[in-house]
């Protein structure tokens, strides 16, 4: 029996995840002793913890990139940007959650703890090259989200959506695990590049096993990132979950799942000829089904759920363009689009959460009527978020879609680019429906009728709006930042700017 030498610990690499986790535990301890009998302390501590975690990510951009803990933790641009984004999303969600929870009378004490741990799970997923760590991150994220979805225990549809999410999520997990098993089998390695080891071994049955395993892994990941053949849970879960959870889930789980998908697809490069056509159609179907199904919805959260399916399709286009032509297309536009998506989804759901009044919440389009009078600032910002989701020119959504469009053209994926453009135009119809609902008059709508403090929500919405403005104004710089020179590739910004 031999023992591995004690590993040297790269404290910086695990700092963000650890800080978020420990913040959750501290919040749990506060909850246990409950000094002030309300959640204000917990919210404050969580926000400080998230801020510290964000601070611990920033200096890592200038540290040497690479993996530590034997590949279990990896530091690169993709991971750092997505970690920062996950922390920001969680921060914004906490800002507007407390008023919502009180307005809706959700007596669930562990929201903040579970959300923090879910964030940590997502952060693990995007910064690892080890399939065991990937699986753990996936499950920490998933299990926390199952609990959060069923958080509103007096409401049947919340519980039903939790049930559906849980059963389908666990089903997806089983596929992920079987996939990992068949990648582990021929290589004896749990590293994400087991595929290339198996292919390099040059034994036909090893390659076959790796192919089988990789396919199952992709099925599981499509479940988790709600891509089309496996998207059926998305609208139900988005509709049933409490709105602040929907906001958190829509951004966090999408960011983490797409981040993991990027790594897995990049690692699957040796088998690209097998899976590329399939993922090609998955991307097309996601965009088409997501956008067209959203047209006929009568519920805002359901509509946004289908819109999230479509957005997953857009992200997949960017990833496929990168995999198809890695020398020409960097991951910058993917990261740019994910960042924009996270911010605008968060903002849109934050505004929709205002529909909760006095313990009840309707989320059909007519329940948004009169929002313009009740909360003018938030409703005004909703226009911005929706415009960005449509892709109206000076917004981040427009730049994101344009960069992806250019990437797809550069990689020679003309059909994907065309489908993206056409479905984006279709999507304008249902997004405009949301705006229209907000501006319809309602009898007796009074400004801020319940008299509850909306400062947190306004701050959250303001942050999202500012982020959209900021990213839009400095789109080229942001893109340049996301495509570093160390990548050894041409920064994508120069190319797109030149083409424009």
């Amino acid at each position, binding site marked *: *029996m031999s*023992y591995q030498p*004690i590993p040297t610990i790269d404290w910086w690499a695990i700092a963000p995840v650890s800080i978020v986790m420990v913040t959750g*535990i501290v919040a*749990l*301890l506060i*909850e*246990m*002793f*409950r000094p002030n*009998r*309300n*959640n204000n302390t917990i919210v404050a501590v969580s926000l400080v913890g998230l801020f510290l975690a964000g601070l611990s990510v920033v200096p890592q951009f200038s540290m040497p990139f690479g993996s530590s803990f034997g590949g279990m933790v990896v530091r690169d641009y993709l991971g750092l940007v997505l970690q920062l984004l996950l922390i920001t999303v969680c921060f914004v969600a906490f800002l507007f959650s407390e008023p919502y*929870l*009180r307005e809706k*009378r959700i*007596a*669930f*004490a*562990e929201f903040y703890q579970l959300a923090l741990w879910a964030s940590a799970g997502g952060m693990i997923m995007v910064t690892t090259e080890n399939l065991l760590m990937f699986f753990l991150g996936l499950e920490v994220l998933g299990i926390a989200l199952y609990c959060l979805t069923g958080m509103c*225990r*007096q409401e049947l549809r919340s519980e039903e959506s939790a049930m559906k999410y849980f059963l389908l999520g666990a089903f997806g997990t089983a596929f992920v695990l079987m996939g990992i098993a068949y990648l582990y089998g021929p290589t004896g390695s749990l590293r994400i590049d087991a595929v290339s080891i198996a292919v390099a071994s040059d034994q036909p049955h090893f390659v076959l096993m790796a192919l089988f395993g990789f396919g199952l892994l992709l099925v599981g990941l499509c479940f988790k990132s709600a891509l089309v053949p496996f998207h059926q849970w998305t609208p139900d879960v988005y509709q049933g979950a409490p709105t602040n959870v929907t906001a958190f889930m829509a951004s966090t789980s999408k960011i983490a799942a797409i981040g993991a998908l990027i790594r897995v697809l990049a690692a699957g490069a040796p088998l690209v000829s097998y899976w590329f056509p399939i993922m090609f159609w998955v991307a097309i179907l996601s965009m088409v089904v997501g956008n067209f199904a959203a047209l006929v919805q009568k519920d805002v959260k359901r509509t946004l759920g289908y819109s999230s399916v479509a957005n997953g399709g857009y992200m997949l286009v960017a990833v496929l363009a990168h995999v198809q032509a890695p020398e020409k297309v960097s991951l910058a536009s993917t990261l740019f689009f994910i960042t924009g998506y996270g911010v605008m989804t968060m903002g849109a759901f934050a505004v929709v959460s205002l529909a909760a009044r006095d313990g009840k919440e309707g989320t059909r389009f007519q329940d948004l009527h009169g929002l313009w009078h009740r909360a003018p600032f938030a409703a005004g910002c909703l226009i911005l978020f929706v415009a960005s989701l449509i892709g109206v020119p000076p917004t981040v959504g427009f730049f994101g879609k344009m960069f992806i469009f250019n990437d797809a053209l550069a990689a020679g994926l003309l059909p994907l680019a065309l489908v993206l453009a056409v479905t984006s135009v279709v999507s304008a119809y249902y997004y405009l429906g949301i705006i229209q609902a907000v501006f319809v008059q309602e009898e007796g709508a009074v400004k801020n009728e319940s008299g509850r403090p909306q400062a947190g929500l306004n701050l959250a919405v303001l942050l999202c709006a500012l982020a959209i403005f900021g990213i839009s104004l400095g789109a080229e710089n942001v893109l340049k930042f996301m495509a570093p020179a160390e990548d050894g590739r041409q920064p994508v910004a120069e190319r797109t700017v030149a083409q424009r």
Partner: protein
Amino acid sequence: MASEFLPILVLMTVSAVICAAMVTLSWVLGPKKTTPYKSSPYECGVAPQGDAKERFPIKFYLVAILFVLFDIEVVFLWSWITVFKDAPLDFKLFSGAVVGVYMILWIIGDAYVMKIGALDWDEATSLAPEKLLADAEAARAALPAPVPVRQGGL
């Protein structure tokens, strides 16, 4: 290869045949006289009362769930202990520290479960209505009593 497992196969077949034979033969050959007394669930003891599908307290269920959860912690400790015995000192110290952190997390979780009253079998007051509203009196008035949802419960 297959011949090595032949005895097992034979054993399984023989046992299956014997079982089947016992059940079918006693059913075919045995006399069938039913009396109300015979068809009652128990031939001796007290006559059964009430419905078999009685609902029993939710607390059992909660304890079972918590057991499933906390039971698993031993798996990690056990795999750690198997290598701990012959390990060099630095490994012992390092892995001991790691397991210490792990155990602290479990203890916090355990303490939380007890503190919020998930294991109290009498009526536990786990949810403070004050959580919902800043004003405690308004909260009590606003909430329907008793609160249907309880923190820490199911």
